[in-house]
């Protein structure tokens, strides 16, 4: 997907509005707990994720910290920052949020971290060599074909994703570090399913399909070809749009904490969850978070019905299935009904 180091611009992706929305919302609010993109091959899944790199926001991080700890939030600092970092005098640097790739072939030791062999032989010391989960802290962890990942790797991934912490007790190493990441997975459902437990950990899920409309399809080909013919020129053409999008996201991040929601919104969340018989409470909570984030993305500080609709679309479908076998048929009419009737 790269050409001379140039990435296909995010804003040049035709259609796939749900997918783009889900990705954007997650970057604005990493607490949405990631997104799973399901769809056939060739539907711009990976392109979209890679394209994110270009529009990711900058943030502050503690200089020299391998976990890029946030200088402003000491409750999630790593051991080292906790012991040595001083808020007044410590060095802070700016850095972009990054997309960290977790290859399907990754072994557990590379994921969670392992014993540093060089240190051990040279100095006879046991040191922790950080793995992918360390790198992923405060970044995006991208797993292509997440459904093909080894079961036990999925288990540790789940564990870390749920707690925001990676604890290692292996190979003579005992270590704990923060690992809070936006989990983005893509999968082709034809290749097999994900366990419901893992699906539930993804805040949002979108199903993508190839564009059905002829004009859009033509547009997809046109853009792709002109990108490949002259990537530089193509990227330049979209520069303004990219900037605008990045600016909008940055603004949304700023106002995110000011967004208010009425009691009515909360009842809608609960009512939908009960009507749809979802498992547990993750659905309601994610639903509200998505609505709040969408409001911020619109540049508004008040949640309205449109936000609720979008939140329902992105956060509910995958939580519908009660059992591994029952097909989750989501009753969108019913949801729309509940939202329409509500008084916000």
């Amino acid at each position: 997907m790269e050409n001379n180091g140039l990435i296909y611009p995010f804003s040049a992706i035709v259609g796939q509005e749900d997918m783009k929305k889900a990705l954007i919302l997650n970057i604005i609010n990493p607490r949405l707990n990631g997104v799973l993109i399901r769809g056939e091959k060739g539907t711009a899944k990976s392109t979209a994720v890679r394209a994110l790199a270009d529009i990711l926001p900058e943030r502050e991080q503690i200089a020299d910290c391998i976990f890029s700890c946030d200088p402003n939030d000491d409750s999630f600092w790593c051991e080292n920052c906790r012991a040595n970092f001083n808020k007044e005098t410590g060095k802070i640097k700016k850095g972009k949020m990054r997309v960290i790739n977790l290859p399907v072939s990754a072994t557990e030791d590379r994921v969670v971290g392992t014993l540093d062999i060089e240190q051990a032989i040279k100095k006879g010391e046991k040191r922790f060599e950080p793995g992918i989960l360390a790198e992923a802290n405060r970044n995006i962890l991208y797993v292509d074909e997440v459904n093909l990942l080894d079961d036990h790797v999925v288990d540790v991934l789940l564990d870390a994703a749920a707690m925001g912490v990676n604890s290692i007790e292996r190979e003579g190493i005992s270590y704990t570090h923060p690992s809070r990441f936006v989990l983005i997975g893509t999968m082709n459902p034809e290749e097999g399913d994900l366990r419901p437990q893992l699906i539930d950990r993804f805040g949002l899920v979108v199903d993508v399909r190839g564009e059905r409309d002829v004009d859009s399809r033509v547009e997809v080909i046109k853009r792709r070809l002109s990108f490949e013919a002259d990537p530089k020129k193509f990227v330049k053409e979209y520069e303004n749009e990219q900037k605008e999008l990045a600016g909008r996201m940055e603004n949304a991040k700023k106002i995110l904490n000011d967004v208010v929601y009425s009691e009515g919104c909360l009842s809608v969340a609960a009512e939908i969850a009960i009507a749809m018989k979802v498992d547990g409470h993750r659905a309601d909570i994610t639903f509200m978070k998505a609505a709040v984030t969408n409001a911020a993305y619109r540049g508004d500080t008040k949640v309205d019905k449109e936000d609720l609709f979008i939140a329902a679309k992105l956060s509910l479908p995958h939580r519908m299935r009660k059992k591994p076998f029952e097909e989750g048929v989501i009753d969108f009419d019913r949801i729309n009904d509940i939202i329409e009737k509500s008084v916000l």
Partner: protein
Amino acid sequence: MFSNCFPFSAVLGQDRIKRALILNIINPNIGGVLISGEKGTAKSTLVRGFSNIIDSMDVVELPLNITEDRLVGSIDIKKAVNDGQKTFEKGILYKAHNQILYVDEINLLSEHIVNILLEVLSTGINVVEREGISYSHPSKFILVGSMNPEEGLLRPQLLDKFGLYVEAKGETNVENRTEIIRRRLEYEKNPKKFCLKWEKKDIKIKEIIDMGKEIIKRIKVEDEDYGFAVGLAKQGNCLGHRADIILIETAEAIAAFNQRNRIMEDDIKEAASYVLPHRIRELTPLEESETSMDDNRMERNNTENSPREDSDTVQKPLPEEENMNSDTKKEGIKESIEDIVGGKQKININMDFGKKFSNKGSGKRAKVKTDSSKGRYVKYKMPKGKVKDIAFDATLRVAACNQRNRDKKGMAICIKSQDIREKVREKHTGATILFTVDASGSMGAKRRMGAVKGAVLSLLKDAYQKRDNIGVIAFRKDKAEVLLNITRSVDLAEKCLKKLPTGGKTPLAAGLYSTYQVLKADKIKNPDSLQYLIIVSDGKANVPLKSENALEDAFIMGEKIRNEGIKTMVIDMERNYIEYGFAKELAKKMDSEYIKISQISKTDINASIKSLLDINR
């Protein structure tokens, strides 16, 4: 671990989980608690929040990725290398002594680690004899586990070690749910502020616990309390005496929690609702009606709260099951051939409640010690032949013991080839189950296909939990068709079967040929997996593959499959006046299990297939 986790007292509802945790601190002899429940019900949040409340104990977490050496402890490499001393480096079991040991997703823990845990749990001592180290230390802890039963069940030995069992469930009314969202969002906006706000309530709980710990010292257990407890345990058909003892210990804690010096009958009843659910063995319908007639209502609540009805994976109680069976049978007759006979509820047929916990099924068909470098590293071994997957930590520890006379060449340590150790990895290996189904016209008759579909589908849920791979091949008209190549997606298998049409001739040989190819390809992809083949046919082959003789061709292919060492079962669908017994002959040629559908119900088909799958456990 990290400050500002979601406060214990701010979790709405889930009172039974909270209570169970508190009781364990008041009386550590209870023996821990297992929290089971659907996802997103604050299971782990509660345990982690709880660690902030108690200051007398720590919550030591046992992560899923743990290796043996960190669990039991091993030689301290640094000291060995630098000072030439053999010292013991403490592991998790040492840290956990007199503390709480918490295992999230305990049903996913690797087999080897569970074995070690079981041993330490029963002796209370961790004995380490490895790498030149000989050390033992007491290790008594309160074991707290949480799990989602959808992901597989817990080994019965481990289950029994838990004193208490509670279930986590989502709230079902709007007000409570709204409050939960409100609190969570408020917490995420500013965790620090939120924690401060709830600090007082947390402290109040802590005071109750501290008071309880004082009171419990003074509690005297009366003879009739023992009698009552034993009676309850007996009603539940509990094995052994553990249930009786834990009932009393828990009742004491409940009394202390309520600030009483005496145990009331209600305390024991309440205790029973925590202690008995995972210990009750199958109740006959008679016993069940007795208990409901009994003025002892609690006992009945008990059985209602017990996991068998709440959990998705579990069977209904016997009387209902019978009803359901007969219902679905009736349905089956009404339904058309293409439909699946038997509802989805009927899944897992031969597993009644009692067997739920005594069943070996714990989320995998088999745990294979794998030779490939995939899988979870659990321990090490001496290498045989060429070393492929070096266990560096273990190698280092062995080398560290032998540094005295070695030339280190400026490095801290010198490693010789005899020090090298290899990793032993453990991998969940689901089986590969391939269904080769005869979809010819003769199979359509008399709704045979429906029965087969019903039987196969009810196996699928089991297959999901055990992470099996499934494939479906159908043969009809003049060819075999791979409807579903070997996949993990049980959903797809279900859809495929639902749509499967019948009609046409019977190209049995072609079906078997496809089967052979598919299984062979799968073997290359997953060399560790156990392969099973289930052939459903009436054996009346009438389309040859190579020669003129359709049946002969089928037999030749069958023998080929047999030579691959694949476990097979032939389900004979023949149901005619004059029986040819071709399928039986095929089964003989293939050395396979053989059952005939006309003789038995589909419930038995399931049982037979399951027993086939379980052989290799």
